[in-house]
């Protein structure tokens, strides 16, 4: 477990900023203004990046490397080619700070949770000024985050789309907790 290098931080933040926009700052700002207050930090452990309170990360240093499996929230992992891939486990973080959101209707929930892209007919609500290929967080109509993805078209273009046209490509959804448990949490 170690802090990220500059390069890694850059890659990670570019990825995150795609979803969070400027509120990325609040991800790493201290919890309160008191001196020496706790804050969230990023830690790399076996190619996985964890988002965790500094105090907890410090405590976890007493766990040896091969025995440590997880701490805090796992954001995703660095692929062998050096790119960063966000996992579904990062959803609560992204949802909190999301810049653009898409809400799906109840009839669109299950198709999305089973790994499908979002078609126009299933979109219940969306944000007006969303550009193309923008990272969005997907919610259901009760404001429960279900996953995230990237828009296939900008909002204006989707208006002319037919109901079966894809609005948003799925990147991760909550269904992965069941489908991909082995791949998601088998760190090392």
């Amino acid at each position, binding site marked *: 477990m170690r802090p990220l290098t500059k390069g890694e931080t850059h890659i990670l933040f570019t990825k995150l900023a795609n979803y969070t926009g400027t509120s990325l700052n609040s991800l790493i700002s201290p919890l309160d203004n008191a001196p020496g207050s706790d804050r969230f930090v990023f830690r790399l452990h076996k190619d996985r990046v964890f988002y965790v*309170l500094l105090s907890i990360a410090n*405590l976890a240093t007493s766990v040896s490397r091969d*025995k440590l499996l*997880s701490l*805090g929230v796992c954001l995703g992992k660095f692929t062998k080619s050096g790119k960063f891939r966000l996992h579904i486990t990062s959803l609560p973080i992204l949802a909190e700070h999301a810049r653009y959101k898409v809400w799906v209707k109840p009839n669109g929930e299950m198709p999305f*949770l089973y790994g499908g892209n979002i078609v126009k007919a299933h979109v219940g609500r969306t944000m007006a000024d969303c550009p193309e290929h923008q990272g969005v967080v997907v919610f259901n109509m009760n404001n429960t985050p279900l996953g995230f993805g990237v828009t296939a078209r900008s909002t204006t273009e989707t208006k002319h789309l037919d109901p079966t046209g894809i609005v948003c490509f799925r990147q991760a959804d909550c269904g992965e907790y069941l489908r991909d448990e082995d791949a998601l949490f088998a760190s090392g």
Partner: protein
Amino acid sequence: MGVGRRMKKQGPPEPLSEEHFARLKRKAGLPVDDPPAAPPSKKKRTGKEVPSKRNSVATKKGSTKESKNGEVVKPAATVAANGKKSSKPKKKQPEPEPESKGSDDDDEFDEDDLEVEGLSDLDDEVPGEFKDDFLESDDDEPYDSDDQNEKAHLFSEDEDESDAEEKLTAANIQGLSRKLDEKLAQQAEEAEAEQQDLQLNITGDRPKILDDLEEDGDDADLLSKTKALLAPDLQLLRNRINDTVRVLDDFGKLAEEGRARAEYVNQLLKDICAYYGYSPFLCEKLFNLFSPREAFAFFEANEKARPMVIRTNTLRTHRRDLAQALINRGVTLEPVGKWSKVGLQIFDSTVPIGATPEYLSGHYILQAASSFLPVMALQAQEHERVLDMASAPGGKTTHLAAVMKNTGCIFANELKKSRAKALIGNVHRLGCRNVVVCNYDAREFPHVMGGFDRVLLDAPCSGTGVIAKDPSVKTNKTERDFIALPHMQKQLLLCAIDSVNHTSKTGGYVVYSTCSVTIDENESVVAYALSKRPNVRLVETGLTFGKEGFTSYMGKNFGKSLSLTRRFYPHTYNMDGFFVAKFQKIAPTPPNATKVTFGKQKKGAKESSEHQQQQGGSGKSNDAIDIGNDDEFIDKTPIVDEDESKKDDNFGGFDEEEDREYIERAKRNAMRRRGLDPRALRKGKTDDKEKSKGKTEKEA
């Protein structure tokens, strides 16, 4: 008359036979597969009892005729036939309906049927005369009465807006009415059971249960053996179990002359083994925990699945919202009980509970009701450091995180990596951010990290409390398991105690729990810890229900304070069998003891830190002494198997220098095979080697 009337009236749980289900179905007008004709009741078994049975039938017929005349006559004949039991039949002789007479004539073994109907009629028609009886037959089984309470308190604990409550109740009405139906059905069953009991009273005061082995000799023995090999007659077995339990309840009056209690007990054990499929060893072990009647109820409860319970994840949602969302999806549910504010019991569902969008987004987790208990007992506070020593699959860990509102820090340890996957999955799904998951043998723990405010130890156990969930326990647990498991549990508990910080302002508590009901894994482990660690004491668990732990058992005395521990049985609270004990650490582990152990341990660690990690253990010397000497040593370390340590001895004496040569050669070969220059390795190596040498020394 020994046991109170109430016990007899409640009767043992209903039989497993299909028969009464079929009857219920027929009553409801549903199509029924013809159930096997009611098997000959126990009375037919022995020649001795046949006449008395005839008598009872005769009297019944007599009474039937009389009632036809339009007058209820208390049958004097019954009095004569049944001798001292006369008072009961007098009161309870039912007033049979004319239509039932036919069946009586056709098949005299169908009495059960007949009488049940008679009884229900009786309730309707002559309430005045039979009121006493009727009321009693209305008695519920213990857990059922609990349910009744629950209904009154639907969501009343955590919600104050009565509007929403009403709405919820309305939405749930279907489920509730279904429950009501179930209860009615159960009452009917109970009435039947009671009737059966009654009949026993009528037919013979001293049921003949035991075989006459002395008389029949080898033939009978052989016969019984072959019988045991054949599929047992379940109904017969069941009746015999019933009889035996009844006899054991009131041994002086009901036992046959010249028979010892032990004979009856042995017969009962045999029958239970055959009927439920337990291994004799386990059967006896479990049987000895209870009175015969309670034991029977326990075995019976192990055949029924416990209700499915989910726990609301209070980090994500509220129970009311979750209940509403699930009801909208067609799930019938109800709060699990007054004692929990987060549990919901699922009765029925049109969707898979483990795959709803709410589940996937972490609003709840499937968790047995009993698993709430240790976390509730631990009472973790916010901003504390807590250790969960054996945490997979994460139900308790996430519950802890929810109780602590995602503050502080939880170390969730799990020995098995494969199980840890589910743990990490649940931790993330439920949004717990304060959890560190690690993969140690929990017995290493005071060394990895200590100073926790609270420790939760839900020890690996034999699972005798969850036989309903995993019936393989019935047969696959042997005597050896009940030596090895408690051994490990004792080690774990001592480790847990040593990991706690006694100076913690808010904490200093250890909760020990198992899903087993045996004494070896519970009371004796706790007593062992109390004797080895004078610096801990038992405290109240804070659980409002549950039975007190045993303070003594079969000559072993565990100490008075064991009454502070809590036991839960499947037949009493309709949750898994469980045990919870809560310790408070009030002082550091005595200095003399710790010093000695620590000194030895550190030496051992220096010598073979590598080996230790692989074995997940440490010096065998500690172990041997620890078991023998009560005072001096504190066992904080896992005990390596005798065989393993011996092997170590024989195998020892690595020649590092020689090995290095071999290793180097192998490396060079490997390099060559990969097409690299082996000399490059050598150059780098000489520098590295010295560095690494220094490093290892430092580490040591």
